[in-house]
């Protein structure tokens, strides 16, 4: 019997459409391709006739009035979550909602937008989240189009303990107006207790959209972002995980106490390398007791906030920020303390006040400026205790149903005694076997390349090395063909070389290919990772040119220095001028090849 003839698969598209499809998809990155496939799937789900492709003309006429774009820029996931809620709510109003991450948004379409909602967080000292850098740059720059047809509203997310609170929301809000757009309603400025501001803002958005809605209600169009499967455990309902290992990993002579923590997870708590673990801490009992004593309470006083009733002690221990001050509390305290010093501070310029604020915890202010507080008022004046996020330092392919963390214990001498970080202190003091409330916070912006043959360059000084332990574990477990290059730094090699034995073993095993080190206090001149990066500039550029992905994790200032070094490397070794280098790096960022997780 002769061989069966092999037929090509029956083509679903004719040649013309195949060519169109090829032209359409040529050069698109993964997120755009996903968007198209989602779009098509949505069409199919609607049972649209095969040829019901909406023409540009039809769309202008029928869809434009109620088409809404919800754009978000998110670093830790809060802004993304609010944007998702908004999109969901607007869809409930029958709007045609496009939910899009800022770096996936084609900026040339901005001129044609009619209704735009922006949800954006502000990082560190007034910076955009990494995924919104390009968008903010575009909107702020000279190339931004007139937006006379646009109606918009902005929800900013921030942390009022930083001086540039909600700077991104303010900048975009003002800029849209300057470009001719019409503000639908006032900007929202959410603090760390996001919902307080976000929920009413969302109600307003809904009402506005309802008002705008035309008689021809358009259907929901599938969005670029697949709806995340709702995990059983989340921020509001963390999983009570068991701490298995709490091991100090800096030597006894190190003034910095870094802990390696191993936490047993429920199998449903899936995470990818690069994700963060949210930890819901409790304030140290001793801190609460000191505070209660200072205020002259018993701690048993019953306090009701909203629908919740707890003892004052319970509120303070488990539900209120005692380590991070905010302006609102200081204002209320100033009234009670009748202190001219406090009044002067509140009247001072923002940087001076902020310096004062960050150097103190709640108890320090009470010690320095005694005042009477009723328990209910005091609890209400403080902000809710927010979970803290830590980059996960492991791969499930290696550690199974566990998450490992590398946590630097914050311990500083304050004006009135030792100040301790609430979450790092909570974790450091927890013994093996203790229960730790956790949830997984996905960080889709910080992912290993899909293509395992790509090289990766990882910059992770201090505990910034945490996600890269996960990366190297993952790449080793899947047998990734790409090379791994790590830059690590600390003050002293002998006492602060985090995971030294593991990196040595990885180098020996060939799962880590290069390790460049900067120990700033071991040498006469202080040397940091960005300097090592510059020294290896040619090689770094060669890797990037060959498709390498570049990751940075750690302190904000380090992230800036590394960025500057990288930019210089692209200029020097890539033969580009400054502008072209910026374009190159923006393109890397957009393509997901330059990811930062800085804090």
């Amino acid at each position, binding site marked *: 019997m002769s061989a069966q003839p092999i037929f090509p698969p029956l083509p679903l598209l004719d040649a013309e459409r195949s060519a169109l499809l090829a032209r359409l998809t040529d050069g698109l990155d993964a997120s755009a391709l996903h968007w198209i496939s989602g779009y098509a799937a949505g069409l199919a789900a609607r049972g649209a006739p095969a040829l019901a492709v909406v023409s540009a003309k039809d769309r202008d006429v029928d869809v434009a009035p109620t088409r809404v774009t919800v754009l978000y820029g998110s670093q830790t996931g809060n802004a993304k979550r609010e944007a998702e809620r908004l999109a969901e709510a607007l869809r409930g109003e029958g709007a045609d909602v496009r939910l899009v991450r800022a770096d996936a948004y084609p900026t040339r379409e901005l001129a044609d937008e009619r209704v735009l909602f922006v949800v954006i967080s502000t990082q560190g000292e007034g910076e955009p989240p990494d995924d919104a850098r390009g968008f903010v740059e575009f909107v702020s720059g000279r190339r931004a189009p007139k937006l006379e047809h646009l109606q918009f509203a902005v929800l900013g997310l921030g942390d009022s303990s930083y001086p540039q609170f909600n700077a991104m929301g303010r900048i975009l809000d003002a800029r849209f107006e300057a470009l001719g757009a019409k503000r639908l309603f006032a900007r929202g400025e959410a603090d760390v207790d996001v919902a307080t501001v976000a929920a009413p803002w969302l109600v307003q958005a809904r009402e506005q959209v309802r008002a705008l809605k035309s008689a021809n209600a358009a259907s929901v169009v599938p969005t670029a972002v697949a709806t995340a499967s709702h995990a059983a455990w989340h921020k509001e309902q963390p999983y009570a995980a068991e701490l298995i290992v709490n*091991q*100090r*990993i*800096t*030597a*006894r002579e190190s003034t910095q106490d870094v802990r*390696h923590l191993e936490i047993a997870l429920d199998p449903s708590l899936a995470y990818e390398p690069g994700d963060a673990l949210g930890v819901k801490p409790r304030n140290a009992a001793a801190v609460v007791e000191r505070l209660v004593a200072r205020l002259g309470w018993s701690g048993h006083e019953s306090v009701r906030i909203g629908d919740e009733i707890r003892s004052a002690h319970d509120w303070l221990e488990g539900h209120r920020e005692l380590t991070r001050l905010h302006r609102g509390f200081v204002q209320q305290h100033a009234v009670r303390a009748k202190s001219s010093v406090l009044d002067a501070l509140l009247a001072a310029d923002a940087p001076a006040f902020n310096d004062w604020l960050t150097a103190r915890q709640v108890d320090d202010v009470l010690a320095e400026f005694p005042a009477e507080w009723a328990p209910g008022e005091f609890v209400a004046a403080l902000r809710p205790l927010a979970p803290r996020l830590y980059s996960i330092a492991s791969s499930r392919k290696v550690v199974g149903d566990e998450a490992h963390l590398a946590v630097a214990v914050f311990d500083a001498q304050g004006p009135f005694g030792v100040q301790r970080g609430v979450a790092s202190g909570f974790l450091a003091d927890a013994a093996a076997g203790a229960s730790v409330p956790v949830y997984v916070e996905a960080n889709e912006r910080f992912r290993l390349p899909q293509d395992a043959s790509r090289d990766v360059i990882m910059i992770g000084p201090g505990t910034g090395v945490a996600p890269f332990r996960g990366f190297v574990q993952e790449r080793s477990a899947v047998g990734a063909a790409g090379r791994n290059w790590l830059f690590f730094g600390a003050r002293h*090699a*002998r*006492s602060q*070389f*985090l*995971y*030294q*034995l*593991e*990196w*040595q073993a990885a*180098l020996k095993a060939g799962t880590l290919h290069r*390790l460049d*080190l900067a*120990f700033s206090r*071991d*040498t006469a001149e202080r040397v940091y990772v960005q300097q090592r990066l510059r020294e290896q500039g040619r090689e770094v550029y060669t890797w990037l040119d060959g498709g390498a992905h570049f990751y940075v994790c750690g302190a904000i200032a380090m992230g800036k220095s590394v960025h500057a070094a990288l930019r210089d490397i692209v200029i020097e070794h890539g033969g580009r001028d400054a502008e072209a280098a910026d374009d190159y790096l923006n393109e890397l960022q957009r393509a997901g090849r330059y990811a930062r997780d800085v804090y």
Partner: protein
Amino acid sequence: MSEPLSSVETLKRESRGLRGTLRESLDDAVTGALRESDAQLLKFHGSYQQDDRDLREERRLQKLEPAYSFMIRTRLPGGVATPAQWLALDALATRYGNHTLRLTTRQAFQIHGILKQDLKPTIAAINQTLIDTIAACGDVNRNVMVSANPVESQAHAEVQADAIVLSEHLLPHTRAYHEIWLDEQQVVGADESEPVYGPTYLPRKFKTGFAIPPINDVDVFSQDLGFVAILEAGELVGYNLLAGGGMGTTHGDARTYPRLADVLGFIRKDQVIAAATAVLTAQRDHGNRSDRKLSRLKYTIDRLGVDAFKHEVELRIGEALQPARSFRFQHNGDRFGWIEGIDGRWHHTLRIESGRLRDSESIRGLSGLRAIAAEHRGDFRLTPNQNLIIANVAAEDRARIDALLVEHGLHEQLRGATFRRFALACVSLPTCTLAMAEAERYLPTLMDRVEALLTKHGLRDEPILLRVSGCPNGCSRPYLGEIALVGKAPGRYNLMLGADFEGRRLNRLHRENIDEVAILSELDALFARFAAEREGDEHFGDFVVRTGIVRAPQTIAAEVSA
């Protein structure tokens, strides 16, 4: 030899003149250690890689490598150092080391706790003081010892000069040291052949000492190569040549043993180099290069026979050795306090417990010697018993030295029972990689307990040689202790008894692998018998041999004569 060569032999041969990959190892920031092969080669450059063994387990849990550091040992023939050299070494110990200086049983300085990145600056700085560290360790001739005897000043000067010339003659010729540590440019095509050593150096370490009777402080019978100065009417006429001493043994290996050197004969003063070269090259060519446990000269001599070995040496010298001249030792200890030399200069011997100079609350040894070195116009002599002589002091300067000693708490070093001033301990834990039990850190406690026993038996003023070693290799020359503890495991030792007070009789194993309770109870009983049964002013070591508590061990006649 039909046996395969030991791996160290291959390493030496392929080391490109002891260079290995030391430079690459030093530059590797991922570890504070050297590659294994380079750690071996480093010994030839005068340094040992060590780690703080107290911290090993703690750091393993911390996912950190062991706390590696380096010990640097000087080559300092006869242990003579100038005040300027003292100050320089003190500064290095304080800047790079662990804030202590260690005076060794081979009259060298050791600086401990140097980190890898500080090795090169430290070695370079030592060389700037005109002291080097070449061949202070490794399979070569080590630091040459000379009796610290300062009284016989003329003879000491002559013997010291011979020792220096010999030490220089037996240095390796490779320029590796100068290139790696002193940034000397490598000369392409330079002749680096080793005329004395050959490409694989010696099979094992090789120790040389010069004794000036009547003091045997260098324990000349423990040396591979010994010279006993022969003085006639105060004039140095030559030396008796000794060969084949050695302390090191291996627990549980009956083929290994400590051995006292044989007296081969007499040589003229002008034959020192020729005789030393003959003994050393005979060992080079006949020593065991397969099993490093059996490669010291003592085994070579026992394998060949003393007469055959002597014949071999005579062939290499080119003439027969003369018969040995008569000599006699009185003791192998130091003479403490001020002593006047025959030239009218004064010498003050300070007791330094375990040779460790550090600043503690009561005794500020490091600061005290720093203050003395800043004013002292003579020199310093490190004694083979880990003590220190402030030598060549003019009579009028004595009071100032005394004042500085008092000021720093160094004047009461001789308090307590007499045996304390003779006690020796090796470094051992936490830094020595070979250590099996505590030595230096245990000595103070042990001495307190032994003193209590001696006091109980009315023996508080009895001079007894107590030596403690953390392993059987014998850096504190334990097999020449009247009482010695040789470490077997944490808290457990072999109790050795029966050496004499002059360094001419070995001791023997009395109780094996016992703990402190057993050691003290054994000593309690022995001291009781000694107090009751001793004859005249018989020494403790002689007593245990005479009464058969231990069998008579290897002994050199009290008076060696032709």
